[in-house]
């Protein structure tokens, strides 16, 4: 081992103690923070499993006496979202229908943009990129009214293609930036070698760059899926009644003004709505970190 080569004279050093005061403090803080964020989840979960009679007792932190998934069932298939009473499942499938194309198109276009901007550098690329970045800083609200007018004029307002188009447009700056920065980290010589080998614009993109892009593709997918799924305002304005996403329907469930407030059903509906982003984070957390770190690692 390395110690063999150390000088014979003993060096004044000792093994660091396992638990120093600072370490204890850090763990205490982490534990408190974790509890702080987990507490609402705990209350939501237990409440959703209680009956309304039990909820009225007011023991907020108590575990359910007779756990039942009736509230979950009701939230999924029978709760009233405004006029219709078919549960949040309608919204779930609407959201799926919006999220899938709103993830695929922006990633495809963003990757292509990033690739073109970082390797081919067409004339005016920097100006284009600057304009795109400016778009990222303009609040969505400013653009809603003009966009409504434009989409209405071309007959896409209140339709699935309309909302997908809106999501695609609004995600373009971030997607482009993401892929551009990733591709800037790939040596130019690789691109030049492919050019000498006769690769054209599309071939280099499809056969060389995309296979190297797995980490960033996953990061982009995570960002798009969670972003589009969590969207409320764009869905409310552009999707139309037929395609209202789950978030909008959840709001309709919780804000009904007639009758009794079904806390257990509300909790279950909320958890159902947040299930997809949660699942995405749990499944892909490892990839997310890897994608972020990928920029710092030499290939």
């Amino acid at each position, binding site marked *: 081992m390395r110690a063999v080569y150390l000088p014979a004279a003993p060096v004044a050093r000792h093994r660091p103690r396992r638990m120093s005061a600072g370490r204890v403090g850090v763990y205490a803080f982490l534990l408190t923070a974790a509890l702080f964020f987990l507490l609402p989840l705990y209350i939501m979960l237990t409440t959703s499993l209680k009956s309304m009679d039990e909820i009225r007792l007011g023991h907020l932190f108590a575990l359910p006496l007779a756990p039942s998934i009736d509230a979950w069932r009701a939230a999924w298939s029978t709760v009233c979202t405004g006029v219709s009473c078919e549960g949040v499942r309608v919204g779930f499938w609407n959201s799926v229908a919006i999220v899938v194309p709103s993830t695929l198109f922006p990633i495809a276009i963003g990757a292509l943009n990033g690739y073109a901007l970082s390797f081919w550098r067409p004339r005016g690329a920097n100006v284009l990129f600057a304009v795109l970045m400016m778009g990222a800083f303009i609040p969505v609200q400013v653009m809603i009214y003009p966009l409504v007018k434009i989409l209405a004029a071309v007959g896409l307002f209140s339709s699935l293609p309309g909302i997908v188009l809106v999501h695609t447009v609004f995600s373009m700056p971030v997607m482009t930036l993401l892929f551009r920065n990733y591709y800037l980290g790939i*040596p130019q010589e690789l691109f*030049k*070698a*492919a*050019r*000498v080998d006769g690769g054209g614009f599309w*071939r280099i993109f499809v056969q060389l760059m995309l296979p*190297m892009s797995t980490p960033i593709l996953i990061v982009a997918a995570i960002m798009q899926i969670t972003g589009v799924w969590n969207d409320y305002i764009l869905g409310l304005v552009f999707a139309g009644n037929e395609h209202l996403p789950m978030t909008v329907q959840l709001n309709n469930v919780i804000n009904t003004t007639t009758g009794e407030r079904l806390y257990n059903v509300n909790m279950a509906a909320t958890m159902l709505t947040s299930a997809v982003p949660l699942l995405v984070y749990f499944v892909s957390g490892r990839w997310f970190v890897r994608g972020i770190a990928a920029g710092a690692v030499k290939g």
Partner: protein
Amino acid sequence: MAGVQVRDLTIRFGSNEVLSGLNLDVHEGEFLVLLGPSGCGKSTLLHSMAGLIDVAGGQIDIGGQDMTWAEPSERGIGMVFQSYALYPTMTVERNMSFGLRVAGMPRAEIAQRVQRAAQMLQLGALLNRKPSQLSGGQRQRVAIGRALVRDAGVFLFDEPLSNLDAQLRSELRRELKLLHQNLGSTMVYVTHDQVEAMTLATRIVVMKGGQIQQIGAPGDVYDRPANLFVAGFLGSPGMNFIEGKVQVSQDMARFSAEGMLLDLADCPARSALKDGARVVLGLRPEHIHIAEHGECAGTVQLVEPMGNHQVVWIDQGHRHLAAMVHEKTPLQAGQTLRFDVDRQSLSLFEQDSGLRI
């Protein structure tokens, strides 16, 4: 096989003119080395031959055809990069065959060419590996193989050995030279390493600041450098420079500097010397011979043993000279010694222009 002609080549990056009106002929089958410090434009010149940089003016002919605006793949070139630039998601075999597959070559011929190149470079056992599973030397061999399978008329090398350690570098250097001997293809090779230039080149092109300083066979450039820059750039340790004056009269020519007076009767540049001219005398370390009754004197400042020879740094007051001594004479720092100078091999430069006389 093909030559390359570069005519009045001008290249700009923004408003910065990197090359202006450069002319260069690469003969068929020669190993031409572009040598110079970083930023001298040698890589830019190579990349413009490859078609990877747009030219602002001039013309590039490859194999007698105007290729100034041709796509890199249409130029009949193969290229090897410093960073290997292997496609990380493809196996060695796929890396080497990529260009051929793009060109739509029949599978049987692709396999045959890859096999031949792999055999030449001893890559047979590695064909199914990914680049990340290879060592640096193996990676660069694959990169060379990828250029070879193209059966190109001209091979371009952009500092291909710079990322390798010293031992691998000399090993691959030898392989490259053998490869050139066997293939006889035209090769253009960029490096800042003078040893690579000396050992590999048929001709060396020394560049500085976007200008060609000298073109010639390695021996010529080494023995008869065209100016002070070339003289100082080649050789290790570098050429000794001594500033002084020339004294010429009818029957004698002498170089005089502080503490040094040399008879220039045998000097090749004797006839071009003018009385009173301010010159720089260039003296290679191997042209200083230690002799008991030598005409110059100095003290030993430092001795660097190199195994088969030793480099002796001689202190002459405000001047330090490096001398290469092949004898095993034991020399001590601080001791005084006398030495002679090989007059036939020395170079003289004008002090103002730096040009060879």
